[in-house]
């Protein structure tokens, strides 16, 4: 073999090697790596029943924006300590951002003041604009309460007693909602009374002991748990249903919409939970990539009655298709 032939063979081998490196490895041409953003969503409940539409939006955003989202419920509903532990655990496990619906806003703020949270935080159901919060996504609960109060007053023009049901001492969104709705009733002279854990106290005992002859009692559930519980009690007991002039509340879980459709719930304040879910992931990613400084999304609220469920503008929002 002549030198010339050897050089040709060597060149041939080199060309083959370069071709191999080009086509099958990323030594020469670097493959663009699409980054997957790890996000943890921690809610205040031990079940996800009230987050069905939110999760649909969240899942949609996860696929569209290349995020790996873990949806986490607490071991025990409304345990602030567990929620704080979960936040720290997820941060330690490498979450790039955390979306949280706080059990106690003050506990969360305390954690932030102590600089325990080092990843961007998106807060749900809170309108706080603390500098350490990357984004806040929430309806305006005070305005929502006012809207519901005004609708009830227009539907029940004669002054009647209003019972306000809540599972826990109203805090956060429930507190604002309570202030809004209660303010309207105070303006119009409707007497109101707050009952905590009405299911434990007994709906029959509360309603029969305070029955208002010829008027009926308007019941407003300040939180979703109370609304579902009260609706279930009224659907099973026609005497109780007869004592109430109407049941109202907020939320758009499937069970609530079913009760509205059956006429057990008279009116509901709803928001676009699908969008809330989508925005929560989008804002979390924007915070990770530092594309946005801070975000505040105030979700619109709508008041719907039984006949509104199947109106196209509401149907799309209440039963979103992924």
């Amino acid at each position, binding site marked *: 073999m002549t030198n010339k032939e050897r050089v040709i063979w060597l060149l041939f*081998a080199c060309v083959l*090697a370069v071709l191999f490196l080009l086509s099958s*490895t990323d030594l020469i041409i670097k493959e663009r790596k699409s980054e997957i953003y790890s996000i943890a969503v921690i809610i205040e409940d031990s079940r996800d029943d009230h987050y069905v539409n939110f999760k649909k939006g969240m899942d949609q955003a996860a696929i569209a924006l290349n995020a790996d989202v*873990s949806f986490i419920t607490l071991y025990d509903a409304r345990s602030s300590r567990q929620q704080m532990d979960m936040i720290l655990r997820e941060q330690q496990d490498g979450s790039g951002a955390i979306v949280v619906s706080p059990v106690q806003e003050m506990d969360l703020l305390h954690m932030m003041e102590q600089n325990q949270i080092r990843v961007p935080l998106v807060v749900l159901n809170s309108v706080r604009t603390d500098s350490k919060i990357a984004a806040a996504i929430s309806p305006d609960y005070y305005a929502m309460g006012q809207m519901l109060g005004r609708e009830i007053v227009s539907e029940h023009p004669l002054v009647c007693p209003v019972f306000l049901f809540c599972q826990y001492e109203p805090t956060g969104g429930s507190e604002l909602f309570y202030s809004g709705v209660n303010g309207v009733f105070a303006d119009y002279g409707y007497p109101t009374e707050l009952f905590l854990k009405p299911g434990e106290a007994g709906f029959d005992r509360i309603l029969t002991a305070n029955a208002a002859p010829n008027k009926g009692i308007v019941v407003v559930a300040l939180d979703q748990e109370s609304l579902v519980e009260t609706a279930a009690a009224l659907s099973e007991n026609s005497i109780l249903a007869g004592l109430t002039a109407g049941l109202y509340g907020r939320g758009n879980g499937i069970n609530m919409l079913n009760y509205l459709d059956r006429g057990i719930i008279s009116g509901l304040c709803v928001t676009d939970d699908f969008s809330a879910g989508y925005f929560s992931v989008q804002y979390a990613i924007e915070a990770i990539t530092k594309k946005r400084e801070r975000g505040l999304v105030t979700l619109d609220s709508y008041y719907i009655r039984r006949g509104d469920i199947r109106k196209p503008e509401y149907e799309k929002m209440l039963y979103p298709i*992924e």
Partner: protein
Amino acid sequence: MGKKLGTALLVLSLLLTGCKGGTKAEPLTSIRIGVSLYRGDDTFINNLRSVLEEQAKAYEQESGIKVTLDIQDAKGSQNVQNNQIERFISLGCNVLCVNPVDRNSAAGMIDKAMAAGVPVVFFNRQPVEEDMNRWDQLYYVGADAKESAVLQGTILVDLYQTAPEELDRNGDGLVSYVLLEGESNHQDSLIRTEWSIQTLKDGNVPIERITGGIANWERSQGSALAEQWLEAYPDKIELIISNNDDMALGAIDAIERAGVKGITIVGIDATTPGVEAVRSGKMVGTIESDKQVYAGTIFKTAAALALGEQLETEFEDGKYYWCPQRIIRGN
């Protein structure tokens, strides 16, 4: 020159091949399980999913091992489910729990799982045997359809033996029945139908089939079919045998709308609304597969596979687990 060329090629090949150093495996402190449901709005599947989530939380608290359950709804589309499986694998799930949309199309999902070395626990809808035998890291957890059907038939046989007039309302010596069947491509539909009727025959219940139809496990479809039959066969139907509770509840809806009385209804699955219907006397009985055991077996198997531990449950032929079942009767 030849030696130099050889050396250069050797160095080059070493560069291309690369060398991997061995690393010592550390015990996992967290596991990730991808769960794909054939349809999230199926009541039985939804019940099962709730128990699965509870089991995962309990395990996490007990063991200190973090469990991430990614639960996705395939909405009755095999394509969507295939994409979910790909996504689960790319997100690094340690194990997959799959409730297949189409039991005949599990091969594609198995291929992907095998290529990634991710074990699969199928449940509720059994892939064909040929597919299950392709890999030793495939398992199936379900309820024996024949047993469900025999127990369903037993409810009716017992009722006929103690109070025949409860079934033969018009006293003509024949129990006239209609049948609500699940999906035609689901193995349980065919087996439940066959063995439920066979048990009635074996129990010497004189039966006469009026008609039957496929309602795809759905309450709304069960309701629509029952409504048609109530109009087409007025005062003839004495018994409605349903392959599951949801369709039976649909039939109850239709009966209540039509204001008809005296039709006996029996279901399978013991879903929460199904059991409620039995308690309130709207249904004569249903069959419960213990959901704690059912979901518990799925979860424990998945967790053990993810952690590389010995399986607690004994699987028939190393692959199949049949969940225990029992009758739930009305008063």
